[in-house]
């Protein structure tokens, strides 16, 4: 069941990226997809056990704690995802400042009409 839920999040994110013309919504869609992929990993890691893989005193039986590797990997993936979203928002903001619209079809129409002929 959980797998289907995560897949649904992924699908909704993909749908937002593909179908919604608004740039901010597209970026939100990207973020949702990113979350879904992170959930894949973290959920997989928690299948065996959900107790945190933290060593407090002495040793810990590895079979009794959640798999720490996916969590560690996803920490990196979260950071990467945030960077991407930040860059995307900056570029979207720049475009909005210039053209006063976030509709990607409008943007494409306006920018392509003014063919960038000059070098700079």
């Amino acid at each position, binding site marked *: 069941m959980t797998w289907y839920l995560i897949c649904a999040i992924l699908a909704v994110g993909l749908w937002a990226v593909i179908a919604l013309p608004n740039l901010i919504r597209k970026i939100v869609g990207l973020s949702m997809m990113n979350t879904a992929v992170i959930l894949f990993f973290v959920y997989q890691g928690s299948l065996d056990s959900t107790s945190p893989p933290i060593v407090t005193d002495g040793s810990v039986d590895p079979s009794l704690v959640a798999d720490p590797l996916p969590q560690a990997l996803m920490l*990196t993936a979260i950071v990467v995802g945030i960077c991407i979203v930040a860059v*995307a928002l900056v570029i979207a903001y720049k475009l909005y400042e210039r053209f006063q619209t976030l509709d990607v079809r409008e943007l*494409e129409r306006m920018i392509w009409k003014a063919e960038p002929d000059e070098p700079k």
Partner: protein
Amino acid sequence: MNLSDPVLLIALPLAGSLISLVGKLLKREIVPCIAASVLVALSAVPLTVQAATVFAGSVLSSQLGGWGPPVGIGLRMDALAWIASAMIVGIGSVVLLSSFAGGEYRSRYFFFATILISGMQMVTLTDDIFTMFVGFEIIAIAAYLLIGFDQTDAGLLASLKYLILSTVGVLFFLIGVFLVYRDVGSLSISGIATAVRESGLANSRSIHLAVATLCVGIGVRTAFIPFHTWLPEAHAYAPHPVSALLSGVLIKVSLFAMLRILRTFEATYLNEMLLWIGGLTAIVSVVVALSQSDLKRLLAYHSISQMGYILAAFGAASAASYTGLYAHAVGHGLFKSLLFLAAGEIIHVTGTRNVYEMRPIGRSHPYLATMLIVGALSIAAIPPFVGFVSKQLATGAVGTPAVSYLLWATSVGTVASFVKVGRVALPGQQLASGGASREQGQAQQGSPLHDESFVNDNTSGGDRSTRIAPPSAIAMAILATACIAAGIYGERLAVSLSGILAGGGHDAAVEVEATRHAGADTTSYEPSDLYKGRKLLETLLIAALGAAVYALATSKRGHTITERISAIRPQLGSVLLFFVAGLSLFALFAYV
């Protein structure tokens, strides 16, 4: 310091980026930029030290910080990684050198450019697929910012479109990583290889799906059909040196990563499809390229088309075709970065991006014209330039007749469109009609444009518009020399390349030889046949046909067709639909 540690190749450019970041605080920003470029160029030292070991067939590996798998990050360098790495260092330093021209690009630019180079080394050298994902994202962030660096409208939009498409792609890559982790339990490439071999997992459906998603993720970066749609804009509207770096190196680095993954999973069932995708990519994008009037868009489409050759060579899956693949990847890296650098200067000199409106520069800028001609002859595969050798190796090894006809037709198209470009290099005062109208156009919009270049470098005054800056001239000279030298010594290089591929710590080429599919040409291919008469005659025929196609395309009827083709511009919506189509195609193959 241990010079044979591959981590140096990642660390040196990274240190360079740190220097240029700190250098932002200094008054004279050029000093840290030079230091950063020197650090990148210094990577050649560990490369030379490592060359002997790697070519002898052994593998250099290193564990970052002494942490072993599965926790630590492992690096692994074999002969193939060495070739890719050398390409990154070589072309990367030359491109950095050319970025000094004009004085527009300073520490911020060098910061991102060195990070890009470091990320490419990471993707090339890493031994686990999660680090590969991180490397791809490092490359990506640097690339997004570099594409939009000049902050032109088109550049920003291209950057955002690339961002959206490639982030979706890389998320699918991450899903592939997840499937691999779930089913194989290991993320290191060598670990996966042994696990797959021993457990027979290679034929399970979820592994096929994993391979499909991994390929789709990298496919977006590699830009073959149907994932190519972002490339023309991103490469055309990026700053000129960035275009050279992206087109020359980046797409090959992604391709090499994909090949590594396909070999790791022994995914030979994809070969046939890749062969056809390669052929189609080559022919379709060359037709579109022929229709372009924007010089840099034209070159960008040719990049896709040349990637088609490389992919087809991979799909052919024989030892000879692997030689062709690597030869053409390196060759294309050389001449395409030369072409982009020359194109940048030409756009600067003539003040237009439109090929039809450019005035011939042969008389006013003979040096630049020569560089353009060298690049154009190389990509058109005219002997004795490097393109001739590498393209012969790549196409000669494709055994499936239908695909080799496609590639053959592509060569004709390439010649035709570079006749168009090469015309710019002709001597002559003015182009009959286009030149005159351009003069008027310049009179109208010329003045603010020239003012800008006056402001940009006060020292040389308006000289910049007529003279090529020395760094850029030297960079082009290096690339041009490499193109000619690699062409002349092509046979010898090809022989040693196939030697490396056959013996150099890389068993996959031999393996695949056994599983080569039935349609492939089984006669062994001798690189020493290159300069024999038949090939030369064939080239002559291709050149003649190319000129004829050019004449057709510029005739009245041809012109309406090309206008129509070049008016097709993939909108973001259709770009994403292309992506989904490609994803389904790969997934379908996974389940067949």
